[in-house]
């Protein structure tokens, strides 16, 4: 019973391609996030959705488009992939920002994207 799952686990693709990463959580959480971890292991938030509504949109190229069909799913679509997009992408979820500060975020296993 994986709490936060991501597919695929590995993604190897050519520059210029379009790809999607899917995320699902079975924790009943209201809020979901996408993070990018670069080659130096630095973790940076990209997007956050609360009940399917976009609430955080960091300075991310508009080639990245998140979509939340329901509050248990948050997908990430990337257009025109570039070499610099190579990284590990983590999905996470938490109970919800309405409960205030300090909600534990539960991370998925990550998707390792390599752009050639």
């Amino acid at each position, binding site marked *: 019973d994986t709490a936060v799952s991501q597919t695929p686990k590995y993604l190897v693709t050519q520059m210029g391609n379009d790809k999607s990463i899917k995320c699902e959580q079975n924790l009943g959480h209201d809020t979901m996030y996408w993070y990018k971890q670069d080659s130096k292991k*630095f973790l940076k938030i990209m997007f956050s959705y*609360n009940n399917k509504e976009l609430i955080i949109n960091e300075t991310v190229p508009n080639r990245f488009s998140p979509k939340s069909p329901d509050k248990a799913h948050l997908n990430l679509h990337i257009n025109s992939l570039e070499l610099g997009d190579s990284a590990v992408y*983590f999905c996470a979820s938490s109970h919800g920002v309405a409960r205030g500060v300090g909600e*534990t975020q539960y991370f998925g296993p990550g998707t390792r994207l390599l752009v050639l």
Partner: protein
Amino acid sequence: QQQVKQSPQSLIVQKGGIPIINCAYENTAFDYFPWYQQFPGKGPALLIAIRPDVSEKKEGRFTISFNKSAKQFSLHIMDSQPGDSATYFCAASRAGGTSYGKLTFGQGTILTVHP
């Protein structure tokens, strides 16, 4: 702008040692300070967290020390074990406004505990 600075980048200790990882933050509006542990090939997982109304929190072998006036907090691991070898991230967030639980992470510390 790097709002949470973490040091050292890497740390090697012997089994039973007490590694200490330090973090400093800039934004005085931060009011939640978690530490996450990440094993190779896995996602980060919450280890322990503290709010600024206390100066110390202990859970098992892990202790957070918090100094609000200095805007610093640290993680101490007592009686460290080889199984503690992982990357540790400090983070900070604040309630309200447009932050919506956004975690700002430090750069990470790779801890190696030798048997």
